[in-house]
């Protein structure tokens, strides 16, 4: 049986090779995501069946029910999905340009840069009674700026006649440690109220997002994703190593810079709205790689869907399991992520 299907259209203006297995996995995970979507929209203090949720979404319900689902749960679900997709795709891109399956947004310091910015934001724009003097809506911007600054530092410090993946990884780790130290410093210096507020954010949570957040994040994410998918073939080439990439006619350095910027933008926008949800950028591409191999045409879409599943699942568990207490999604991505990751290691060890 042939495992591939060639897709060609418009007199071969468009042509792709589709891996059937990867396509199948994409469909499975999309269905899975859909199921979680319905369950998540139905769960909370008011519980609706998935069937009911579908009815509510199509407007066949009381205004109270539709308010709960449409105004409270839906923005949160959509942000979770967007954030999961962004982090997973950014992780996959970083793993390609750093040529290392262990690289992730967390350990390159980019997420950390956003954390420092947020803690600093809370510290700078609060008065004595810990009330913010500017609108909280500026916080995502601060996070984005923080992430970008660290990404540029990473780029500048790692530059030495070009960007070697080796230096990028090590300097990323250094910057990550730096951001951790700075975050701790600012948290200790500020009052405890801010520390705990900042801590929720650093752990990562989609608590309290609304439709206006979705309106900002959705277009950004979609544009960045389109760019990422256009770049897939360059990502494949990057993974083959510098010499081969050059020999095959790719402009390696320029593409590396472009992809670093792209992943920063993805991470920055995700972190801005959901904080430092950890491990998604590491786990999602890893799981996807196990299922469909490392060709990016297959890897990128599946990573994206798995990333969305992970964050949505984590947030749904976090807001329902311990009612009335809400546990930030980041706690669950770490607690689900960590054991799974260790299990992966264990299996590879024996393989």
């Amino acid at each position, binding site marked *: 049986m042939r495992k591939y299907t060639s897709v060609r259209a418009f007199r071969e203006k468009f042509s792709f090779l589709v891996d059937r297995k990867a396509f199948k996995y994409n469909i499975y995970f999309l269905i899975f995501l859909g199921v979680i979507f319905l369950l998540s929209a139905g769960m909370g203090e008011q519980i609706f069946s998935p069937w009911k949720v579908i009815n509510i979404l199509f407007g066949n319900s009381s205004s109270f029910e539709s308010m709960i689902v449409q105004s409270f749960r839906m923005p949160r679900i959509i942000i979770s999905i967007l954030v999961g997709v962004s982090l997973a795709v950014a992780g996959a891109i970083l793993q390609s340009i750093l040529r290392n399956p*262990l690289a992730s947004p*967390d350990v390159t310091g980019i997420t950390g840069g956003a954390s420092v910015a947020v803690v600093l934001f809370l510290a700078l724009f609060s008065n004595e009674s810990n009330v913010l003097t500017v609108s909280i809506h500026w916080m995502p911007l601060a996070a984005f700026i923080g992430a970008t600054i660290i990404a540029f530092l990473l780029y500048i410090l790692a530059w030495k006649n070009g960007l070697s993946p080796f230096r990028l990884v090590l300097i990323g780790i250094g910057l990550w440690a730096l951001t951790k130290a700075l975050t701790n410093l600012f948290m200790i210096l500020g009052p405890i109220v801010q*520390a705990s507020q900042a*801590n929720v954010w650093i752990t990562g949570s989609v608590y309290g997002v609304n439709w206006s957040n979705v309106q900002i994040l959705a277009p950004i994410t979609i544009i960045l994703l389109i760019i990422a998918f256009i770049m897939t073939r360059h990502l494949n080439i990057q993974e083959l190593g510098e010499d081969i990439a050059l020999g095959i006619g790719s402009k390696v350095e320029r593409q590396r810079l472009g992809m670093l910027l792209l992943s920063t933008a993805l991470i920055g926008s995700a972190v801005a709205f959901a904080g430092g949800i950890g491990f998604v950028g590491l786990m999602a591409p890893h799981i996807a790689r196990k299922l469909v191999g490392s060709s990016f045409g297959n890897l990128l879409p599946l990573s994206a869907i798995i990333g969305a599943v992970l964050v949505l699942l984590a947030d749904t568990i976090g807001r329902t399991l311990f009612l009335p207490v809400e*546990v930030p999604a980041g706690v669950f991505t770490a607690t689900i992520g960590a054991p799974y990751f260790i299990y992966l290691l*264990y299996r*590879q060890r024996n393989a």
Partner: protein
Amino acid sequence: MQLHNRNRKIAGLVLGFVLLLIVNFLSLVLGYTDLTINTVIDAFNHFDGSNEHIIIQDVRLPRALIGTVVGASLAIAGALLQALTRNPLASPDILGFNAGASFFIVIALMLFSITSLQATTWIAFLGATIAGLLVYFLGSIGRDGMTPIKMTLSGAAIAALFGSLTQGLLVMDESALDQVLFWMSGSVQGRKLEILLSVLPYIVIGIIIALAMANKINILTMGDDVAKGLGQRTGFVKLTAGIAVILLAGGSVAIAGPIGFIGIVVPHVVRTFIGNDYRWIIPYCGILGGIFLVIADIGARYVLMPEEVPVGIMTALVGIPFFIYIARKGGKLA
């Protein structure tokens, strides 16, 4: 400027020791309440219960001694890890030992309300061991085995993992956050002498093992295969050295929380002075590590006076530029 001559190396060691005494003494004198030399001497000879004397005996003295011991242990642990992994950027914090120990301590504190010193110490050892094993497994996966870069990345991943788990626990319990936050950044302040005394035996054992193994480690740094060829039981050497690392790193975390970058900076400085002989590296690391941390701690009192900065943040701010410098040089041993 390497010291080649044996006598000079001994002289250097003595000089270092004197320096260590001096900075310890400075640590007693300097701070928010500046004290005079006479007060310090009186505090020990004619203790009169005055505020100053109490500060010296109960606050400054433990602090200086803890700084010395923790600095020494972390530097030695760093040197050992660099030899074991043949990775110049290895250190207890980068390889996740500190994060592992912290996580387990926070769990014990929050979920089981364990505060006993002995228990905390053993929990720290457990955490450091688990983190160490995970990093080792993770770092040796794949075709090309345990390369420095994979080791470093897996260490960072494990550190991130335990870090976010700790963070998650703290989110759920705000009152604990206050309690733990300062400790989590690494600090030698506000600890009683008893804490030091209860952990000291393990650390001493760790240092003795390190010194005893120094020669074997010299051989191990030439590579596993070479060491085996020379008749070394490399598994045994690695295991013992690993235990020493866990005693030293775990013990330090139990006392002072996760303090980073001493394990990278100090061994590198030491190597530029005395080369790659671990029989000298280890004692030098001990003394220089002590000096470094005590000085950092004195600095931590002044940076944002009257507020204290946790010393772990000081060492990180000094150490990270150094780390980046080494990384830019291509991660070669100094």
